């Protein structure tokens, strides 16, 4: 029997009872739908995070004092392990460039009647390049400001809006702690990155910060790698360990991070997500597969006489086997394709809603995940359809014809 004939017989079997076929395939629909939806969300989130990494620059690196496990949130304060001498030593390293120290200035930021909870950082000009920060209005901190330790400030856009509303803040005064600074610029909006709001910031010259706080240590140092980020990271690490006299077996008293590492963390997260999705998929495909098997058993029983007749007019075992296998696969694929469509549709709906909270979220799909789940679904059809199909194929023509 030609494959096309077998396929036609199989499809006739599926379509002869649409309602039942649909209900049978529901397990597969849900399984594949869930996988497609989850991977689509995963793909969208990956784009969000990749977007953040690339806006920071893949070469960007940061050193925090103290051992940090949880990431860069609230870091740097209270640790004094990063010194000015460390900075001088870092400047000699060939694997990195433009190490730029940062020193926090404590105190509330205010202007006239308004206050803002912005974090104030003393920085030198290369800091802005290291962090890919551009100016929107006015100018950024320059070396002249740094050399003269001027009381000037660059505001993040959120801070500027909170303090001055729609008015132009340039040339206005802000108070930080006990000192007044004149505003020289506003930075371009960056949005949230790795859960820190870059737009709620105030930058002042590093020398001014040092003078105001009298602090003897650095809160963190930004820089850019000149070689493979992981190599630069190792270089910085061994330099600081040596400078801090850390024993072979002891932990670092600082943390070095590269944007590249965030990529790795992302990889780990998506690996976890993949395992989770795979589990959901496996469970729902097994459940769906049992549904398919059940209905195929019913179908074979119901059509015993048809099978007998087909054998009586010359069908071989493999013709019958193939017919019922294809029927199971067709059933599964109809379910899988429907599930994929439902998943894509839901991902579309979500991509209409989420950007209200997370601007950089866009509709994305994981095409490999869709392809794999369709293939796996087809194999589920084969695996669970095999036993009933074999039963059908092995029937004796006359026994099958006599069946009532």
């Amino acid at each position: 029997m030609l494959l096309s004939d077998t396929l036609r017989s199989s499809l006739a079997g599926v379509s002869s009872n649409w309602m039942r076929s649909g209900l049978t395939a529901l397990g597969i629909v849900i399984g594949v739908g869930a996988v497609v939806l989850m991977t689509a969300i995963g793909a969208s989130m990956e784009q969000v995070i990749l977007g953040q990494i690339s806006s920071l620059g893949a070469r960007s690196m940061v050193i925090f004092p103290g051992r940090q496990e949880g990431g860069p949130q609230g870091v740097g304060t209270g640790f004094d392990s990063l010194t000015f001498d460390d900075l001088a030593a870092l400047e000699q390293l060939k694997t990195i460039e433009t190490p730029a120290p940062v020193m926090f200035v404590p105190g509330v930021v205010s202007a006239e009647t308004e206050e803002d909870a912005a974090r104030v950082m003393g920085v030198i000009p290369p800091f802005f390049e290291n962090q890919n920060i551009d100016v929107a209005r006015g100018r950024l901190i320059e070396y002249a400001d740094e050399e003269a330790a001027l009381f000037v400030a660059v505001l993040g856009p959120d801070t500027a809006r909170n303090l001055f509303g729609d008015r132009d803040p340039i040339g206005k005064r802000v108070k930080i702690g006990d000192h007044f600074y004149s505003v020289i610029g506003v930075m371009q909006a960056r949005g949230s990155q790795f859960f820190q709001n870059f737009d709620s910031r105030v930058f002042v010259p590093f020398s001014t910060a040092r003078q105001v706080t009298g602090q003897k240590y650095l809160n963190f140092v930004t820089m850019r790698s000149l070689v493979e980020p992981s190599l630069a990271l190792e270089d910085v690490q061994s330099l600081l360990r040596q400078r801090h006299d850390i024993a072979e077996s002891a932990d670092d008293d600082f943390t070095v991070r590269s944007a590249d590492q965030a990529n790795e963390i992302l990889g780990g997260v998506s690996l976890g997500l993949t395992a989770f999705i795979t589990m959901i998929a496996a469970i729902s495909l097994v459940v769906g597969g049992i549904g398919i098997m059940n209905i195929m058993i019913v179908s074979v029983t119901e059509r015993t006489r048809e099978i007998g007749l087909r054998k009586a007019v010359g069908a071989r075992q493999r013709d019958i086997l193939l017919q019922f296998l294809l029927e199971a696969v067709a059933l599964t694929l109809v379910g899988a394709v429907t599930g994929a469509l439902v998943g894509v549709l839901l991902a579309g709906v979500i991509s209409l809603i989420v950007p209200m909270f997370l601007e950089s979220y866009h509709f994305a799909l994981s095409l490999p995940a869709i392809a794999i789940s369709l293939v796996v679904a087809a194999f589920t059809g084969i695996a669970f359809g095999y036993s009933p199909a074999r039963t059908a194929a092995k029937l004796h023509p006359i026994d099958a014809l006599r069946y009532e």
Partner: protein
Amino acid sequence: MTAMTPPLLETRSLGKIYLNDDVETPVLFDVSLAITKGEFVAIMGPSGSGKSTLMHILGFLDTHTSGDFLFQGEQTQAFDDDALARIRATRVSFVFQAFNLLPRTTVFDNVLLPLLYHPTIPTSEREARTNKAIAAVGLTDRATFFSSQLSGGQKQRVAIARALVTDPEVIFADEPTGNLDSASGAAVMEALQKLNDAGHTIILVTHESETAAHAKRIIRLHDGRVVEDTTSFKRRVANENTKLK
């Protein structure tokens, strides 16, 4: 002595015992007969005497349990599933006592079915052959009807068309006129007669002597044994003898 071509179908002391859940039902005993190409055989006998069982064995749908069944001189026990399927597809066909049409399927597709499994008839000939077989039983105007929309006699004719479509050497017909009025019955017998004239071997089961009259040979079963096997020539002689008495 000239080399003889072996008979198309031959049984030697063939027996059949049905086995269902350890219950043995012996149905055929010591059946020995040979059917050659081109014969028109009627199998007769009371209900339950084993006519259908014998037909199913001769038609490769069922297997015997003792003795021998030879096809063109070859032992059929040696045939594997594929070989049996090929014989069913190309050499023999069946008109069942209970029609056995596919439900929810048109007359055309029912008649087409055996061609789907025929190993040599090309796809391009399918439609023409199907239409020809439907025309041969006078159902051209019903070709697109579903089998549920047909009368009993029409269903019987569809079953015959299906048996003709592959142009097999042997056609088995189990009570082909049993469900028909005498006019339709006569039409069916005429169709089978034409096939026999064209060289096909016809083996049918019947209760009716008018139907059996078409046959050149009658095999009579009683309780699973052959009690009479006569050609029409011998029958005529026998009849005349009784008349003379």
